[in-house]
């Protein structure tokens, strides 16, 4: 027996088990993470049934309506005051999303499952997603147009179908009007503002420069008048549109029996989840998912979409790539191909490797101190003197964030480039040189094309790192809510000085900075899932590229009997 144990130890089997165990543990943790994020985040978009019940714990017992958000079982002793049913050790309770925050003040409530009576899921129960104040739960009771009731009692049948189709017609109308309003605000008014700002800066520049500027000032005044006239006209049109959009209101009977009047323009979406079939739910799921990916955030980011964050992340990462790729590749090529092999090169190489380990917040501090205050401040003094003291580039913004992250990811690109160049077989370099190619021609025509995949790998790893970075960004340009996208139709189209939103920071903001934690939580999970998905996809493509590269070299090493 002893002998066989010793044999077992000698065979190395325990090591194999330990290694396999470690791998399993790692995989299990990764999958658990993805599963948690996926279920919590992606489940959020599925329309959940809304419950109506009589809650006995209230004094007097009241009707409550809400969406089931979570449930848990707790020990009775944990509760304070002591649980209503003393004979039980454990009590099940549920978190209900009650909505109607503007009316009742509270959005979520824990209720004891045992004290719910007459639980039902009425088909007519409606969920209203609103532009403000979150969801509203209730029954559609009527429609009003300019204060007068539409579809009087006689026209409404038992199920209220006519009322609902009328509501949808009016929702569509309101949406079209809102689009028009947004179009005017985004393009025409923005143009006017931009023009006015330009005039203001020009006048200030003239004032700073001194000298005779009466002619220019007259011309400016003329232009300003034109802008003012245009603005007055647009303002009238906007007022008219706003009047029109406020025309319709909908009446909803809520849990306590009272009827509230909601402007149709405030409703993003109205539906009856309990009456929806599987296919309809799926449609709603994708509609909400699309809104999440392509809409603007509402209600302190707890609802709506994260397009600005997605957009900001993409813009920053792209700018960073444009900066870091040439710099990193050229530096890597020099270090690997041209730098004399000596102690100085060794020190530089070690330093580059160590840079990859510097905490990212340090880069953030550097970006703030060097890029923003020093470089940005200097740029403002030289080129934007007329808008001082308001800083243009001397403030956190897209350009500085991209530069800071480029610096942060530079070591990754340099190391990957060097590695790729080092992996190119010496026999190919010799072949090229023996044919009369110079060192540069060899590099350009033979070595660099072969090293391209590993440079790409380096870049993708850099992008993945940058996409997930948060700490330095908080110092150099990311904000909770950016009023406009960094790329738009206003000259110069790409606004490098603007602050922007970022997925990583969005998660941080939702998870910890939101005033309405319960409401923000699913959104935080969904955002985190999206972030993980983006970074994972980038890393996977790096792995695939590396695999292809290795295959190519393997073919070379064996003399290529492929």
């Amino acid at each position, binding site marked *: 027996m002893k002998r066989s144990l010793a044999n077992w130890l000698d065979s190395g089997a325990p090591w194999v088990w330990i290694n396999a165990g470690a791998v399993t543990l790692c995989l299990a943790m990764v999958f658990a993470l993805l599963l948690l994020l996926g279920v919590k985040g992606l489940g959020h978009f599925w329309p959940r049934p809304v419950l109506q019940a009589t809650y006995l714990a209230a004094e007097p017992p009241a009707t409550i309506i809400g969406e089931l958000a979570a449930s848990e079982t707790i020990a009775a002793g944990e509760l304070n005051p002591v649980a209503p049913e003393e004979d039980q050790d454990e009590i099940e309770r549920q978190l209900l999303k009650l909505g109607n925050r503007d009316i009742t003040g509270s959005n979520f409530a824990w209720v004891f499952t045992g004290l719910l009576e007459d639980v039902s899921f009425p088909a007519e129960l409606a969920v209203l997603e609103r532009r403000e104040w979150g969801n509203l739960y209730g029954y559609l009771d009527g429609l009003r147009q300019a204060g007068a009731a539409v579809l009087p009692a006689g026209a409404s049948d038992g199920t209220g179908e006519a009322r609902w189709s009328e509501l949808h017609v009016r929702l569509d109308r309101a949406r079209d009007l809102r689009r028009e309003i947004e179009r005017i605000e985004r393009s025409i008014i923005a143009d006017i503002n931009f023009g006015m700002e330009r005039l203001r800066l020009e006048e200030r520049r003239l004032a700073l420069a001194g000298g005779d500027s009466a002619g220019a000032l007259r011309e400016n005044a003329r232009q300003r008048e034109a802008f003012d006239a245009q603005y007055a006209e647009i303002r009238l049109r906007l007022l008219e549109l706003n009047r029109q959009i406020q025309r319709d209101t909908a009446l909803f009977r809520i849990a306590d029996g009272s009827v509230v009047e909601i402007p149709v323009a405030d409703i993003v979406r109205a539906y009856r989840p309990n009456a929806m079939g599987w296919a309809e739910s799926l449609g709603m799921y994708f509609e909400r998912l699309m809104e999440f990916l392509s809409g603007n955030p509402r209600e302190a980011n707890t609802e709506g979409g994260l397009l600005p964050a997605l957009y900001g992340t993409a813009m920053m990462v792209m700018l960073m790539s444009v900066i870091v790729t040439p710099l990193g590749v050229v530096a890597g090529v020099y270090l690997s191909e041209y730098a004399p092999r000596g102690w100085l090169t060794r020190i530089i190489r070690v330093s580059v490797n160590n840079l990859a380990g510097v905490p990212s917040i340090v880069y953030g501090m550097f970006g703030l101190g060097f890029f923003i205050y020093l470089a940005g401040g200097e740029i403002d003094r030289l080129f934007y003197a007329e808008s001082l003291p308001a800083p243009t580039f001397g403030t956190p913004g897209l350009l500085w964030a991209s530069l800071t992250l480029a610096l942060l990811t530079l070591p990754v690109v340099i190391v990957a480039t060097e590695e790729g160049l080092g992996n190119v077989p010496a*026999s190919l370099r010799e072949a090229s040189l023996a*044919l*009369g190619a110079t060192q540069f021609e060899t590099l350009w025509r033979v070595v660099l094309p*072969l090293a391209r995949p590993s440079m790409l790998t380096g870049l993708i790893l850099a992008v993945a790192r940058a996409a997930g970075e948060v700490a330095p960004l908080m110092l150099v340009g990311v904000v909770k809510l950016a009023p406009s996208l960094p790329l738009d139709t206003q000259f110069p189209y790409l606004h490098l000085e603007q602050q922007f939103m970022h997925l990583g920071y969005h998660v941080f903001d939702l998870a910890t900075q939101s005033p309405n934690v319960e409401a923000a939580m699913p959104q935080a999970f969904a955002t985190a899932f999206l972030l993980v998905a983006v970074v994972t996809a980038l890393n996977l493509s790096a792995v695939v590229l590396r695999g292809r590269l290795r295959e190519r070299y393997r073919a070379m090493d064996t003399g290529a009997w492929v």
Partner: protein
Amino acid sequence: MNGGEFSELNPDADGVRPEPCLETRNLSLRYAGNRRALNKVRLTIPRQRVTALIGPSGCGKTSLLRCFNRLNDLVDDCVITGRVRLDGKNIYAAKVDVTELRRRVGMVFQKPNPFPKSIYENVAFGLRIRGIKSRRRLDEIVQESLSAAALWDEVKDRLHKSALELSGGQQQRLVIARTLAVAPEVLLLDESASALDPISTLKIEELISELKKNYTIVIVTHNLQQAARVADYTAFMDMGELVEFDTTARIFTNPVKRRTEEYVTGRYG
């Protein structure tokens, strides 16, 4: 040119005394760490003949070969003294254009090393480097070179396929074609058939016999039969020194030095 140096080359099997092409005088080479690879080598390579360099491993054959196209320049801390003359001109002189030298002195390595490009682009590589852009001209030279390397018939239908799909022997002939494309005067073959199967080896040997009509060829080989088969002249080297240099027939049948005799009869090395 120093007339006295002709005398070093004995007449070949046909009784013709060839002209010298490459000459080394007092050539020594030291690698980093003071390791001496060549010691005062004095050798004359005959024009348009095949010269074999034989000798035990580490005797300096390959180092000598790589002196002829200055490929040793790439090795760090490699010190070369003495002279190497190509057509009477010192190739280690300061003003020599190394890339031009390497074009004139082509080299084929032990392992086939085609670029991971198409067959066509492999052959055209040296031409593109030299700035030849005309499609017609490229096509012409590619075909000529592949024909000269006895590969044209095998690859003419797949010129734009990857060179890595060829067999080892075909790859080696492709590399020879690639070298021929830039029109060198000298071909250096560094054990170029040693990694190949017997049939491919035979093909390469036939090719060498064919090519010597137009090129001066220097081969390094471990295979004495091969040297005996293809070479007109043979140099035996040992410990970085040139021991004996003569026509192949004389080296293999009637060597002057005892070490040579021991080596070619298999008693040494």
